[in-house]
């Protein structure tokens, strides 16, 4: 389900146990303060990363995960979460309004996607919606997805980068040469070149700098 949900009601009277995973210490405190202001939410802790979070001990019902403040790959954070807190729903917080960033998060298993200029009351609504089993996506970003679909269903999937291509574009954005990328990923330089050609074709670009800009703008780097 895309878009915002009206007046979520929680089936249980128990407060939702929320863990905040946020790399910016100050923003973590701000989030905890906003969420703790609601009597139906129990903030059980905060952590600077999913790896450092005591997930098994805290047993959160829902994790608010900041996409921006982490050096760890998002899918890796999701894997850690699924391994140690399989019951927890995940609400991603991000500054990115690009639909492709949101789609990547949802594909990796997130249950919601919220942009950081959201109002505190709307964030609480999002958390409750997700906790009660609904998906929640910022309506502005969801609108972008629907627009892309209406412009040609299926075309987006063809142009979507594969996992390997995503890895490579991320390394390009870090300024690595083909040789360095091939060494890091244990691939031949020719294979790396082939991947890069496919990336260029999919993104309709012609230069590495354009690829780097795309990676940064879409939150890949």
């Amino acid at each position: 389900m895309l878009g915002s949900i009206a007046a979520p009601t929680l089936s249980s009277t128990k407060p939702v146990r929320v863990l905040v995973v946020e790399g910016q210490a100050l923003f973590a405190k701000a989030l905890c303060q906003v969420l703790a202001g609601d009597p139906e939410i129990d903030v059980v802790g905060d952590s600077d990363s999913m790896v450092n979070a005591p997930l098994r001990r805290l047993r959160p019902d829902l994790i608010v995960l900041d996409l921006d403040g982490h050096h760890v790959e998002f899918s890796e954070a999701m894997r850690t979460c699924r391994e140690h807190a399989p019951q927890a729903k995940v609400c991603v917080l991000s500054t990115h309004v690009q639909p492709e960033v949101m789609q990547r998060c949802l594909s990796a298993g997130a249950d919601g996607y919220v942009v950081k200029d959201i109002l505190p009351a709307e964030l609480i609504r999002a958390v409750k919606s997700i906790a009660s089993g609904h998906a929640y996506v910022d309506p502005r970003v969801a609108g972008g997805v629907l627009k892309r679909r209406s412009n040609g269903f299926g075309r987006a999937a063809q142009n979507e980068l594969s996992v390997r291509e995503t890895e490579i574009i991320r390394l390009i954005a870090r300024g690595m040469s083909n040789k360095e990328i091939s060494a890091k990923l244990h691939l031949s330089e020719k294979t790396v070149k082939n991947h890069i050609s496919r990336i260029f074709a999919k993104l309709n670009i012609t230069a590495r700098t354009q690829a780097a800009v795309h990676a940064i703008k879409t939150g890949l780097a």
Partner: protein
Amino acid sequence: MDSYVVEPQSLFVPYLSDVLAGAELRVVRVAPNLDVDDIRATRPDALFVDTDFLDVDPADAVSAMRAALPRAFICAYTNGEGQRADRLRFAGANCVLSKRSGPREIADVLRTARTRGSFTDPRCD
């Protein structure tokens, strides 16, 4: 000190404003991105800029702020380390502050930086 904050994470702004108030920085205006004309028109004593979400190069942004307000106190708030932090300092930031800082640390650092004239968070080195 009247302060101008550049911060797109608006959810975070009320809390940040309280923390800045603890360092005697009174937030008079908040913008989601760099707007040099607006900064010039507001003429704050201090600028607090989250450099990680700008549409332009962070060092260029600080440099533009410094050119617009040569005597203002500029604090660059960043996840950057090493060269990225150095560039912010060389561009004219009085204070380079790590995002790993907690609220009390931020207030202390801002007070120190204002007294000394400059401060770089060791975690940004």
